[in-house]
């Protein structure tokens, strides 16, 4: 039985993809619209992209988002990788089940709850909300995604490679940096990319934990849209879609490379 492209399949596929991508396609198309009216086509133009460059607050927000994204992705990758190593390599230790549960919980936690609880925490600690609180919030919710990605790579890695390194005189730390890390590097890179994308996209958690002077790009866009959609926003969103698409492409290439890594099946 080979699957066939019946008329039914074609129709349902078309409808499905249309539902998913039509809004995005519209947005991209209208970002090149000459007209100032969002819903009326007035010819091709890149004037809104040029106008973006003159929009100080939007550029500033993009810069904030980029810095928060890079910083939080980097912290999340370090912490998430360490958590994955602890979960996979240290066998059964006290509190392992609890830690596993705690790592996975944020994956399914509604963002509103994560955001609200972080807000309460920062208020209770009397921390000034701003750049660093958003960064911290992003670290805490994207870390678990990194853990999941790295963990799946670690469990398939031949344990005897690390044992061989220790057998040859490498301390556990040297083993991690010289053997484990190079072998899980594709997954670590993929995890970073994922955390970066999550941070760049986030509106809900950032809205809860941000303060004056630290408006992220999604927050700025959302704020402007409430006053009316302008083609400029369409252009900004198109650029974001481009960045996220590139990140996801890099992510999938990195994880494919990880799968094809000769070392994976080498042991057997």
């Amino acid at each position, binding site marked *: 039985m080979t699957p066939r492209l019946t008329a039914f399949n074609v129709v349902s596929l078309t409808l499905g993809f249309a539902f998913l991508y039509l809004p995005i396609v519209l947005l991209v198309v209208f970002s090149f619209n000459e007209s100032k009216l969002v819903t009326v086509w007035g010819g091709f133009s890149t004037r809104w992209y040029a106008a973006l460059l003159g929009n100080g607050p939007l550029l500033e927000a993009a810069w904030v988002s980029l810095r928060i994204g890079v910083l939080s992705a980097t912290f999340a990758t370090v912490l998430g990788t360490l958590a994955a190593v602890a979960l996979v390599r240290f066998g059964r230790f006290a509190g392992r089940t609890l830690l596993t549960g705690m790592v996975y919980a944020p994956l399914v936690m509604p963002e509103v709850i994560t955001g609200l609880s972080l807000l309460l925490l920062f208020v209770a600690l009397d921390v000034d909300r701003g750049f660093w609180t958003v960064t911290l919030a992003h670290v805490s919710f994207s870390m678990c995604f990194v853990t999941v990605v790295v963990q799946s790579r670690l469990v398939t890695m*031949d344990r*005897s*490679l690390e*044992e*061989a*390194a*220790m*057998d*040859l*005189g*490498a*301390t*556990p730390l*040297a*083993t991690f940096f*010289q*053997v484990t890390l*190079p*072998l899980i590097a594709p997954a670590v890179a993929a995890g970073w990319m994922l955390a970066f994308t999550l941070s760049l996209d986030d509106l809900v958690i950032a809205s809860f934990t941000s303060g004056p002077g630290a408006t992220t790009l999604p927050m700025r866009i959302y704020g402007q849209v409430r006053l009316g959609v302008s083609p400029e926003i369409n252009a900004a969103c198109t650029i974001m879609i481009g960045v996220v698409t590139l990140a996801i492409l890099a992510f999938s290439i990195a994880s494919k490379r990880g799968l094809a*890594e*000769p*070392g*994976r099946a*080498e*042991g*057997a």
Partner: protein
Amino acid sequence: MAEPPGRPAPLIRFEGVTKSFGAARAVAGVDLDIAQGEFFCLLGPSGCGKTTLMRTLAGFETPDSGRILLDGADLAGVPAHRRPVNMMFQSYALFPHMSVEANIAFGLRQDGVPRAEIAERVAAIVRTVQIQGLEKRRPHQLSGGQKQRVALARALVKRPLVLLLDEPLAALDRKLREDTRFELKELQARLGLTFLMVTHDQDEAMAMADRIGVMEKGRLVQVGAPAEVYETPATRGVAAFVGDSTLIEGVAGAFDGAAARLRVRAALGASSPEFVVAAREAPAEGSAVTLALRPEKLRLWTEPPEAGTPNVLEAEVWDLGYLGDKTLVRLRLPGGGTVRVSRLNASRRPEAGLSAHQRAWIGFDPADAVLLTR
């Protein structure tokens, strides 16, 4: 264990080493001494605990109880990376992201050996295991035999007190495996190193080891030279696992101390023939014993042998397995049960005059049966 006078202290000593995984006992109370320069082989069926025992010496498993001494020093609490032993892993465990050269140099770099010396020692070991020209390759660009040599070089280059080998030849094809046996043995003798090898292949153990330790369900049941283990197995398990044996259950009868002969009433289905076998001491009369008969030590006649020949049984040829150098004949005993007899094909007329379902007589010399009480 008292030290035999005049013998040097052992290089490795296992004292009552026990290791369980959850409820399962992988290693149960192993006592073993291995001397400097010895080629020692742990032999046993898969899952009997050989690898686990070896890993306690390498430092990857911590014994639940017991001690391991290396060169007189207790290894308890010494982490794997500080033990002067090196292991060749069953999977070879070559680092896939490093060249052959970097793999071999890895251990020396960890010890902070100067660069020039590393280069020198790597070059020397590359020559020893004959992998010149492969230095720049990655592990996935090597054949199975080449990987095995790189793994060997990587472990040897550190000049360990003991080299541990976990099923070193299991991944090679048959011809290469047999050639490599002799090479490894020769290398060990030339370097004067102590080798501790694990295998489930008894031919491999016989061909390579100075002494064999046979393991069974986590216990070390017999230790001895290959010939000793083969000719005088200590237990039914050893007799069945090391080489081919037909085991016949029986009951001990009268003992003739002067001739060192024991009568055994065998339980072969309905019939119960009486055999005479060599025995140094008598098990209690009436106790259960087992006779182990090696196929190559059984005689086979197509005519009834002359009267007075000891230990003769009439049987029916069941099938003939032609193996080239020998033919394995399976026979059915009248009371049920089968016996295997091997016949050397010393000439080019294979088993003329022997065919399935014909009557035949088998027999064995009293000294050729192994009497087992355990």
